[in-house]
């Protein structure tokens, strides 16, 4: 799953540790999210979306576009 976390963080001039503090997660977790090595749980995804004032879909994009299959 791709995401815009790094861009959104940079726009707000936040460090990984700073963003982690706001989300109550570690710097390593922010790093893993930004590099796409870890997909967040739904509660964490909502937390991230609320923090940036965006929807989950505006931050995270599924690699496979399955919308046409639904």
């Amino acid at each position, binding site marked *: 799953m791709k995401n815009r976390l790094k861009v959104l963080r940079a726009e707000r001039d936040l460090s*990984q540790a700073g963003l982690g*503090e706001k989300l*109550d*997660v*570690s*710097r*390593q*977790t922010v*790093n*893993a*999210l930004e*590099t796409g*090595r*870890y997909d*967040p*749980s739904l509660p*964490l995804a909502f937390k991230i979306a609320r923090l940036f004032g965006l929807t989950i879909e505006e931050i995270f994009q599924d690699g496979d576009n399955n919308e046409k299959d639904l």
Partner: protein
Amino acid sequence: MTQKTAYQRYMRLFVPAMLFYVVSILGISLAKRHEIFPDPVFYGLAIIPAIAMLIWIWGHMRYITELDEYLRGLQVRAVLIGMAGVMAFATVWGLMEEMTDIVRIPIFYVVPGFYLIYGITHSVLMKREGSCS
């Protein structure tokens, strides 16, 4: 709770429990060497280090639940790899002890063996995280 606070809470329990574990094992070994107690007493004394170990494992479980979801996953992976390593070694070595004249390793070494593999695995996983920024 922050990750740092969780780690500090864990270490506050782990360090004294580990020290108690080491001291109790050394004490029991010395007592046995000098035949201070009759043999049946050692059945009871052998439980003491296990209690210390159960205390720090409880602390470890609490620590894992207090971590964020990603670090929790890394911890679980490290614990599973530690368990897998020890169980695989115990299986192979145990069978060799039964079938050959290979040197016998006391079962007591399961705990340090597990923590050795777990510690190395966790360090590698965390180092990889640190170098990926």
